[in-house]
């Protein structure tokens, strides 16, 4: 399986017809984009809202962010985009694609939600997230029927992001690519350790029937399975609606997959990806962990594995048991895991521990607090939040000073390992 991704790096953006990419500048015709989106059957019953740019360093705060999506488009006459989500189900992972580097599509949620995130493009909040260094096109969507269920609305928001991203990257693909990255698992020296990636796609803590995660499947019945890393990079996997410390950008531009690819043949051999989910019951967890460990050890023949999680506290048990099962099979492991603030001590960082989990990398304390100053310009609504677990807390004026948890800063807490924020003991 071979995937070539053409990179188009953006260093300026503007609204101007026609939509095109040239010499680092992305210009977008907002009317054409809106027309395209409104013409799509996935978005029937919705009104596409205003669009706005947010540039790195600007005194801008984007609030009520539901998802962060890369601008990515698969090239070719019969190429499908995000199969099962916005296209029929056909193979991905092989072929040529266009990717706009340094740009995100920010999908805004019109409904208040504790998991909505915000992004300051300058000021102290910007230091904590790699997303503050990129350009952003913010888009949003309003259901014609205000009574529409959250699940249906989120499904449309998810597709809005994917459709916008493909629209932009398709326009860019008309230009000559600046660089091309090739992804292929070539045979490498047998002396190198074979490293696998156990990619937890979703958590059954909060199942969302019908959400497209793996080739359009909602993974409610998923047993561990093998994926080629190119399938991840090429749109077979879509992040779940529940965006706790994850987003579409990090699912597709998966930092573990990209890191293992970058070092394939250098100091390791990338053995492959095992897709799993976190479970709600012990037998289901046990079954999944056992099968995932077998896939890593006996099918991928891995010497080492990296495990990432998704969801909240219970999947920490899935991670611990997966690490145990792998170490039991003589596979050396490390895990990327967030931690809880608790009472602030190092002892109460996780809900589950294992003596075999002796190589954990911190994705940060997700519920530690951070103070953000007022911001002159806001995109995404007058109100933001709520930002605490207090059921009585109301949304707050979005431009004012805000006290938020780290997880509310888009990209700061990334459960797949895309951020530099980390728990440090002192």
């Amino acid at each position: 399986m071979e995937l070539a991704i053409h990179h188009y790096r953006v260093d300026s953006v503007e609204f101007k017809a026609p939509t095109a990419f040239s010499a680092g500048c992305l210009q977008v015709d907002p009317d054409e984009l809106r027309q395209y989106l409104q013409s799509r059957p996935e978005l029937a019953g919705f009104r596409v809202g205003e669009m706005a740019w947010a540039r790195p360093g600007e005194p801008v705060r984007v609030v009520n962010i539901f998802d962060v999506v890369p601008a990515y488009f698969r090239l070719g006459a019969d190429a499908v985009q995000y199969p099962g989500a916005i296209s029929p189900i056909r193979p991905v992972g092989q072929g040529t694609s266009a990717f706009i580097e340094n740009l995100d599509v920010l999908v805004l949620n019109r409904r208040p939600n504790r998991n909505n995130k915000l992004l300051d493009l300058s000021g102290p909040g910007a230091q904590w997230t790699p997303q503050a260094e990129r350009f952003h096109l913010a888009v949003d969507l309003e259901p014609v029927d205000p009574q529409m269920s959250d699940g249906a609305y989120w499904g449309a928001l998810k597709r809005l992001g994917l459709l916008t991203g493909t629209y932009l990257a398709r326009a860019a693909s008309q230009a000559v690519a600046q660089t091309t990255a090739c992804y292929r698992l070539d045979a490498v020296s047998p002396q190198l350790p074979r490293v696998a990636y156990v990619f937890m796609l979703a958590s059954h803590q909060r199942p969302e029937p019908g959400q497209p995660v793996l080739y359009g499947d909602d993974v409610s019945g998923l047993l561990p399975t093998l994926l080629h890393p190119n399938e991840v990079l090429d749109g077979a996997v879509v992040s779940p609606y529940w965006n706790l410390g994850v987003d579409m950008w990090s699912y597709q531009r998966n930092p573990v997959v990209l890191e293992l690819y970058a070092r394939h043949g250098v100091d390791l051999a990338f053995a492959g990806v095992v897709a799993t989910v976190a479970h709600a019951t012990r037998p289901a967890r046990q079954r999944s962990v056992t099968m995932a460990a077998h896939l890593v050890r006996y099918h991928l023949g891995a010497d080492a594995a990296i495990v990432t999680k998704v969801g909240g506290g219970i999947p920490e048990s899935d991670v611990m048991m997966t690490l145990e099962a792998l170490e039991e099979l003589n596979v050396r492991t490390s895990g990327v895991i967030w931690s809880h603030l608790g009472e602030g001590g190092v002892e109460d960082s996780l809900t589950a521990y294992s003596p075999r989990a002796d190589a954990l990398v911190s994705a940060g304390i997700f519920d530690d607090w951070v103070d953000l100053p007022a911001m002159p310009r806001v995109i995404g609504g007058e109100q933001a939040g709520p930002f605490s677990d207090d059921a009585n807390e109301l949304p707050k004026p979005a431009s004012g000073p805000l006290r938020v948890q780290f997880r509310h800063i888009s990209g700061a807490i990334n459960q797949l390992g895309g951020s530099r924020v980390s728990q440090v003991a002192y």
Partner: protein
Amino acid sequence: MEPVRPIRVVHYLNQFFAGLGGESQAGHPPFEREGPVGPGKLLEDVSQGAISVVATVGAGDTYFVEHPEASQELISMVRKAGADAFIAGPAFSSGRYGEAVGAIAARVAQELGIATLAAMAEDNPALDRYRRQVWIVRTGPHGGHMRKAMEDIAEVLRRMMAGEIIDANTLPVFPRGLKQNRLREVPAARRAVDMVLAKWRGADFVSEIPLTLHSKPNPAPAAQGLPLHVALVTDGGLVRRGNPERMPSGHSKRWCRIPIAGVSRLSPELVEVNHQGYDTRFVNLDPNRLVPLDVARELEAEGRIRLYPEIFSTAGLATAVEDASRFGREMAGPLKEAGVQAVILTST
């Protein structure tokens, strides 16, 4: 170049290091002196002009421990001096002095918000009580280590005043046992690959989330004999009616005793439940559902058990394991002393 203004420090000492006398003066009330006294002079000395001790305050060790109001008086003295920083000790291994040093430093840090350091030895019993609240400089066990202690205090204070991050890995301070978010050099995904490769090669690596393993006690052998001496214990938040002891409903730091001598069964007239972690309506209707005193009394009437005259109780919700372990040790003391052979612990 302008000469750098020295750091103005208030220094806390006990009666002994202040030169007032030994154990005979341990009941000395709080005192204050202008400028440095005893070890404070050494601190100025080793700092080579970087530190100026503007006032020395203190109290007798026994006085401080026995008079809770002493710390308020001392805080006022420190506030009055208007200094940049506060240094308490070093207390070395001395337990009462360590308690005073830790307590006063923690209060100064919290209430005055100035740079604060305590100093003591690793085996000082006050260390674990105060390390989370204030930076504590690591010293040797006794006064023979005074010069080194003062050099270390001066160094840590200088860095603290310069706004540097205090790091227990590189400075002579005890880790606080706390955590915070910081930015590392590279993203977590790259560190995870680095770490697993180090592990595979057998090279050194340090987990970023230290392992917390709670000891698993072995169960005691089954109790023998008739009648069996039994106590009833619960973490379900049982309290006396009206909660006269103001027991918390979670995050517990203490437990309470509920007398049951002569009581045949629990009733809402006698007890209630104060616990935030479960639906308490059913046990409030019939508290024997939480602690089965009614059935235990029946067994007692049959001559099979003999009940301890108190129920021990706490609210187990979100209670730190360290606190819960301490409750267990504290409860086990009187029970063992009374010859209790078994405990029925009903949890929720």
